[in-house]
């Protein structure tokens, strides 16, 4: 899921160029390009902004503005696993607030923070479309429903083991 820890500057630049080359010919290419960069590097680093801007004939401010608008794009890679807890109403109705409090305590981090061992980055999310099985969490593309504190703990253990 997340990026290899130590890519060289050249490798990062190559990843950005590849993402640009892959999508620049499409109408409205910026979001597909940013997604492709984040998929390759785990984030959209600040150093990618000038080359994307140049390729699309946009200002750096415009590209930065788009990156910063969307919750998904990040400027540094997350931990090995990105764990999102749903905070929306359906999950609230079945104890999401308590689950969030439990998760923060268990992991020793707040939202948008990564555990000391680099294993898990915790984020809030507003609805995963799993509202008949609340509360829900998402790890990468793996969605979990009816998450209790115990199930959350075993999920965390599982993720830490998984490397």
């Amino acid at each position, binding site marked *: 899921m997340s990026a290899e820890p130590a890519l060289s500057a050249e490798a990062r630049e190559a990843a950005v160029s590849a993402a640009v080359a892959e999508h620049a010919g499409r109408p409205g290419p910026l*979001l597909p390009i940013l997604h492709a960069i984040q998929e390759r590097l785990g984030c959209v680093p600040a150093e990618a902004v000038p080359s994307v801007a140049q390729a*699309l004939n946009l200002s750096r401010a415009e590209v930065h503005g788009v990156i910063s608008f969307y919750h998904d794009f990040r400027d540094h890679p997350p931990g090995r696993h990105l764990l999102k807890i749903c905070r929306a109403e359906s999950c*609230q*109705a079945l104890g999401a607030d308590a689950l969030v409090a439990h998760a923060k305590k268990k992991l020793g981090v707040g939202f948008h923070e990564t555990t000391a061992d680099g294993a898990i980055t915790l984020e809030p999310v507003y*609805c995963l*479309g799993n509202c008949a099985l609340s509360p829900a969490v998402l790890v990468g593309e793996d969605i979990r429903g009816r998450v209790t504190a115990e199930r959350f703990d075993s999920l965390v253990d599982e993720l830490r083991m998984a490397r």
Partner: protein
Amino acid sequence: MIRVFVPRDSGALSVGAEAVARGIALEAAARAAAVTLVRNGSRGLYWLEPMVEVETRGGRVAYGPVTPPDLPGLFAAGFLEGKPHRLALGATEEIPYLRRQERLTFARVGITDPVSLGDYEAHEGYRGLRRALTMPGAAIVDMVTQSGLRGRGGAAFPTGIKWKTVLGTTADPKYVVCNADEGDSGTFSDRMIMEGDPFVLIEGMTIAGIAVGATQGYIYIRSEYPHATRALNEAIAAATAAGYLGPDVLESGKRFDLEVRVGAGAYICGEETAMLESLEGKRGMVRYKPPLPAIAGLFGKPTIINNVISLASVPIILDKGGEYYRDYGMGRSRGTLPIQLAGNLKHGGLVEKAFGVTLRELLYDYGGGSRTGRPLRAVQVGGPLGAYLPESQFDTPIDYEAFTGISAMLGHGGIVAFDDTVDMAAQARYAMEFCAIESCGKCTPCRIGSTRGVEGIDRVRTIDKIVAGRDREANVQLVRDLCDTMLHGSLCALGGMAPFPVLSAFNHFPEDFGLTAGALAGAGR
């Protein structure tokens, strides 16, 4: 070969369907049983997921909720022949929750293999498009108008009227954009269609394109839906390979191409003009209207924008006729609505019913009451911008006008139930907090108002009991005034409707704000 169905729906996966599917394959191999696994969509009976179905001579029978440790017992009991077991649910179609529905849009969901074009065709798929290709564009639009179909994304604007506007333009190219940015909490019907029957959406969009002369379609899907994105891409590839999409749709000489675009986590991109900006590669900022997107939409060209459910309802309308669809429903709400039961309910899931069913029937007859066993106290209908309704309003029928009549809205048909432990002041605060997090920032009432709203509600909640009374009332009045400004001064529905949950909490649950009903009377609506 015995066909066994285990859903690939992400809800089913979230409670272990993948492990069950693997376990069935292993157990069947060990027993040398000839089993074909089909990964279907979900029937929408989520409390029974993972729900496994077996095709027997007498029809499909269901077992659920199945966990891997149950599998040896199921095999031993003869579940492959549909024999009894502790988890047996009988014939799937006879489960009351399902039997009492009117599944038009969801006719195939849970029944077919979602990405099998052959399965789709064998279950009445692509009959609507074939018929549409024999009709002039205006006749297709008329049929959609006649059906009474209204926008299922929440705004309930007549679909046919929107199409007619695009048909009347002469620009080239024109676009069809499907709004699959299903961000409302308590809603998942779009996701279920895209994961469970993606071809019906593809067919609906193709019909829309053929009707108005649009050649390119985009499905703008939220990034929180990776499984739906995968299913759509598989289905688009299959439809393209078979000539249902591409330069010459079914050798009609008409072009229609389709592409999936993934959002990046922004609730506001469910607002149609913000979605267009996002598709164009910009910040998801709401546009001023006019011009209407139907006249100047994506890349400045005429664009049909419809929700997933609206577009997925078009094939059956074209196949069976506008009257067939219109004959369901009540008043000006025609056809069916896929209603999503969520939150604190025993039987959460999807209920597609003709308009007219009451909230109470949905909550108790289908939903089975609260999952926690406590009394239901408040129900939010229509997502985070929808009103909270008290028990006294549970007899309201599912009908656009009936909901407008009680200062509420049906929206996308999501119903989130709360039991009596809910703190409505906290819910009101959350509504404003959510608006502050997701505001695009273009208009002041939404950008600033939402933050001031959070502060105002915090003051109401934290005012010390000793000085309660005037200060509390004054602050409630302040938040009400703020709501009034947001309602009337915001550019789009985010700021314009975020006050609904707040005001409904004040009006129906004053005790949660430390006030009596009398103290609140007369202060705005």
